[in-house]
């Protein structure tokens, strides 16, 4: 039996109280209790923790290690009530299996009960029976671990796993996007945007949203995985919620996804910003896109797609990336082809003509467009996501004599 994991957990706990204890020492104590005295692993962990707490005179340590005050680790606990560093017994349904990240792992995936879902890992050394998706299991003496804010259930050699029969179907409930937290989550949301994928193994990435907020999503290439359709609403059960740099994202590979006929009014859906275009970024103007079905990535000047390599039969497109500034805040904006055409008065065909016949090529289109829009006042309507305004319409501001009169009045009034 391997005690290093438990020993590390105890060691980390003491680390938090400023006490460094050699995990080897802890491991020795655990081994002695479990192998020589036949003590249950959960009880051994509690006992060793208490022992060390006494030895180092740390009072509050004693209560944490055990299987809970009410009836020990054998009584099933709801997934939503579990907390890290806890020994638990639960009854749940395996709702997803994922490819194990290392040979030390026999199985990984998501297990759920009616309170929620949690990621799990069954160590190869645990010799636990192979679990199958959609079956229910009674799992005794597993450990809840936490890494980067994500709770995970560890099935180790001291854990018993038995298939069980449970009546009644598991009906997962969804939460508002704004309430998601790292771990496992279910949402009802609309696909509002699809991005150029940046990785060969990526099937699709983009933005999902509901009435409360938006979140990035990703689907990795895997047999049976399909792309979501932009503009459609889906019920997504048991996706993995990850956190990078303080921002959440959803990995949908574990999720059960069902299309929904309804619609959602996504938050941030109609923002209007009035201001001046103070910067037109490189990469604006006419661009070339990859012609491979479903790809559509912007190509480099050498017609190179990061996934499909050289693509001489590219497709032309227009876009403007820049900053819209209202004097208080600067908004990143992205204008797509139709908006660019109406704002600049340069159509895609005209831009193509310039790009192919002017000595400066595509740069000439950039310069002409910049000349037409930089420093101009506009009102943009669109959706603001992650500090970027995706513009649906962009109109030049016109001089309002009513506004002029009101300002004269205000400036001339008593000071």
């Amino acid at each position, binding site marked *: 039996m391997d005690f290093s994991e438990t020993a590390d957990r105890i060691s980390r706990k003491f680390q938090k109280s400023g006490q460094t204890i050699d995990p080897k020492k802890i491991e020795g104590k655990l081994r002695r209790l479990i192998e020589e005295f036949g003590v249950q692993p959960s009880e051994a962990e509690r006992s060793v923790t208490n022992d060390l707490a006494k030895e180092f005179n740390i009072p509050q340590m004693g209560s944490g290690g055990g299987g809970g005050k009410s009836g020990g680790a054998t009584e099933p606990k709801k997934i939503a009530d579990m907390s890290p560093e806890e020994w638990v017994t639960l009854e749940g349904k395996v709702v997803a299996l994922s490819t194990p990240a290392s040979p030390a792992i026999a199985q990984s995936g998501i297990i759920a009960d009616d309170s929620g879902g949690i990621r799990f890992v069954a160590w190869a050394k645990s010799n636990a029976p192979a679990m199958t998706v959609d079956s229910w299991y009674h799992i005794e003496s597993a450990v809840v671990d936490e890494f980067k804010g994500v709770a995970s259930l560890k099935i180790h050699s001291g854990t018993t796993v038995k298939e069980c029969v449970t009546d009644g179907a598991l009906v997962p409930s969804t939460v508002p996007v704004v309430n998601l937290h790292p771990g496992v989550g279910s949402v009802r949301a609309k696909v509002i945007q699809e991005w150029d994928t940046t990785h060969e193994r990526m099937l699709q990435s983009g933005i999902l949203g509901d009435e409360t907020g938006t979140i990035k999503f990703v689907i990795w290439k895997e047999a049976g995985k399909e792309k979501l359709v932009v503009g459609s609403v889906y019920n997504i059960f048991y996706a993995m919620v990850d956190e990078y*740099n*303080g921002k959440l994202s959803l990995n949908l590979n574990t999720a059960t996804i069902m299309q929904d006929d309804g619609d959602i009014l996504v938050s941030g859906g109609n923002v209007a910003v009035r201001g*001046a275009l*103070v*910067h037109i970024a490189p990469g604006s103007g006419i661009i070339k896109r990859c012609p491979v079905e479903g790809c559509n990535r912007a190509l480099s000047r050498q017609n190179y797609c990061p996934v499909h390599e050289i693509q001489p039969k590219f497709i032309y497109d227009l876009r403007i990336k820049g*900053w819209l*500034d*209202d*004097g*208080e*805040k*600067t908004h990143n904006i992205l204008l797509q082809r139709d908006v660019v055409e109406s704002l600049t008065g340069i159509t895609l065909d005209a831009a193509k003509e310039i790009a192919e016949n002017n000595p400066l090529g595509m740069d000439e289109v950039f310069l002409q467009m*910049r*000349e037409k829009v*930089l*420093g*101009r*006042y506009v009102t943009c309507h669109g959706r603001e996501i992650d*500090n970027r305004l995706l513009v649906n319409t962009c109109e030049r*501001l*016109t*001089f309002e*004599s009513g*506004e*002029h009169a009101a*300002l*004269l009045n*205000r*400036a*001339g009034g008593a*000071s």
Partner: protein
Amino acid sequence: MSTNAREIGRKDGSFEREPARRVFASELRECRYDFKEGTDEKSPTFVLLPTGERCNRVFIVGTLTEKQRQGDQNIFYRGRVVDPTGTFFIMAGSYQPEAMQQLAKIEAPAFVAVIGKPGLYRKDEASTPMVSVRVESINVVDKDTRDLWVLDTAARTLDRIDIFKTSTEPDVIKAKEVYPSIDPAVFRRAAYDALAQIKM
């Protein structure tokens, strides 16, 4: 309020860009106080407007009346941009070749929009600092854009004057301290005059 926005931006790990303030020439030229926020090399530098707002970037629209090429080794351009209240001094050097090329191409007189960083420049220790705007971007625009800018800048200036009267924001308190002899009422008057000059 502006301090708050920046703090939130940093906490996010995302970079909050400094907005381009709207200010008339008659106010910008009164700036005498500048400061850096933060200690590292890349922390932004601000000039403090007499109406109590910090300013790292400006958006100005006016008439380019003059431009000169200067320097032998290090070529740079200087220009004057006039609004209804006074003159902005702008410059673009080889450290920002694109801005310099943009300015080089423009024939004065012309309506221009300028995005740039204001800074205080002193000939020597004893002399009064002069405010000059280092150009990030410049473009020829139309008279409508100039008129819209006057409306926008008048509104922003009046907003700042209103806040100045009652606010306890550190920047406002600092402005009262470093510009004791400036009465913001002069900027209200300037805004009125600017408004009165357009679209008559």
